[in-house]
């Protein structure tokens, strides 16, 4: 049976009384690229962070690779997972942030190898070899010894993608990966992501790049005020939307 990689059923999340997610349903199939679009504050990033355990959802079911996020079902009881298990689950999900968040105290190679060495207990030589391959893949060979501050935003984001890939994740989450970049640097990051999509990686991308969504996504979800307003294949959703909210959103973005 081909199980969905991510399945959300009625996911709720509130911060200090403010409901950010009001029952979100979403399915991401293996090998698919899913784009989440919507105005800021609509809950896109929160949903992504719930999938990666960075936030705990309050109600609803959230399954990654067929397993409940943060809980284990034994009999008819849900057991909260301990830190070790949560860390293990996180290590299988790659995350790319809007502001790159490369480790400032480590150089490019160390940024990429620290996860595999410390979390997956892979030996240093092997980790370095893989890291160099990844750097070639994101077009940054020869930058191994540079520190993050010595790189442009686009280069930093490509290193961040390589860092996430070094963990050999089964799922990649992108939280507005190009929003903090100069317009001319957006392309180089999107190219790496397109390449990754072609290789069959399951990806969930929160983005404002409608061109990217149209070209690469298999499914597009439009979130507004904590609910999915509209979803479907990108051509239908982005070119002939039925919801008036999405129509007005697209008219502002495009």
């Amino acid at each position, binding site marked *: 049976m081909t199980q969905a990689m991510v399945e959300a059923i009625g996911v709720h999340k509130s911060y200090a009384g403010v409901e950010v997610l009001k029952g979100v349903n979403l399915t991401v199939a293996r090998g698919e690229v899913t784009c989440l679009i919507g105005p800021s504050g609509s809950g896109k990033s929160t949903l992504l962070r719930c999938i*990666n355990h*960075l936030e705990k959802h309050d109600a609803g079911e959230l399954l990654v690779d067929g397993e409940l996020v943060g809980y284990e079902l034994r009999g008819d009881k849900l057991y909260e997972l301990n*830190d*070790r298990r949560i*860390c*293990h689950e*996180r*290590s*299988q*999900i*790659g*995350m790319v*942030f809007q*502001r790159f*968040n*490369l*480790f*400032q*105290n*480590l*150089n490019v190679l160390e940024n990429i190898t*620290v*996860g595999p060495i*410390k*979390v*997956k207990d892979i030996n240093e030589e092997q980790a370095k070899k893989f890291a160099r391959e990844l750097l070639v893949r994101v077009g940054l060979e020869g930058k191994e010894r540079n*520190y*993050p*501050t*010595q790189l442009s935003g686009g280069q930093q984001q490509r290193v*961040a993608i390589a*860092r*996430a890939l070094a*963990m050999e994740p089964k799922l990649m989450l992108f939280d507005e990966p190009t929003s903090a970049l100069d317009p001319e640097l957006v392309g180089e990051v999107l190219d790496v992501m397109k390449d990754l999509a072609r290789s069959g990686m399951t990806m969930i991308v929160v983005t404002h790049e409608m061109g990217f969504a149209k070209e690469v996504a298999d499914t597009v979800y439009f979130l507004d005020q904590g609910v999915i307003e509209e979803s479907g294949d990108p051509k239908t959703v982005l070119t002939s939307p039925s919801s008036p909210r999405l129509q007005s959103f697209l008219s502002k973005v495009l």
Partner: protein
Amino acid sequence: MSANGDEAFKVVPVRHVGQWIGMVVLALFIAMFVHTLFSKIPSGARVCHRVSGRYVCHAQFKWRFGWNVIFHYFTNGEILRGLVVTLELTALAMIAGIVLGIIVAIMRLSHNRLMSGVAWTYTWAFRGTPVYVQLLLWSFIAFLYPSFAIGIPFTHVYLFHFNSNNVFIPFTAAVVALGLNEGAYFSEIVRSGIIAVDEGQSEAAISLGMTRGQTLRLVVLPQAMRVIIPPTGNEVISMLKTTSLVVVAGVVELLGAVTNIYGETYQIMPMLLLASLWYLIVSTVLSIGQFYVERHFSRGALRTAPPTPIQRMRRDLRGIASKYRTKRGVQVGVGS
């Protein structure tokens, strides 16, 4: 620029009269002070010589600053032993303070209420009382707790048992008091360093699957170091001088040695100056060390590390040399 084609305007620079007067006055004061450094004053005694059958007497003079006394005692055995004790106390108290401070800072930032509560109370108590009082309290701790034991709480089953008076000899009491006091201050320094690290850094570490301990050790603390190091240098130098208070606990360190000596010789001022000189020498060495440690931890935060004084000197020399070369080149060009 010229007014009528062939004659240039004369440029009159702004005159900073006040600045000049200030400089002259300051220079005068410096000269007066330097003069006192190397002047002599009557010692109070008189010396008489016999000159062709008659005694001629005049006042005896001595160095105002007692340089001869300072020089004589500078590397005296008792002074050096005191200096070693000062250095030992500084090192041990700082190590204890740093270890404690890191633990307490992490406890303070913990989500566990008991942990953060204990950390807060510790900082409150040890930062809120004078270190002088704490030194006295620890040296008389036997009045409160005559003995210490490790065993099962609230029973008389002991694994180890020791008498406070045997353990809290003056030196240990001093190290414990200074270390605990320093820990309270240092925890705040570490806490500010941890808070200064962008939250995105720990989020990225956590999303790679790192545990909270790994995140702290591999990502957050190394970056917090850049914020922590400068005030740490401050604390080390401050501790160096605070150790002079342990005289009250009965420890003979540098100042203790100095007071012991002037108690016998009455050379109070020269001996205090001698102690000051030693403190200055050690704190200078520590400052130099601080520069290099700061430089090490600036790695990754700055695009290029700041130059060391030696590198800066070399660069300046190269600059002067190249200027000289171009000047000569121009002159040759003009001449030919």
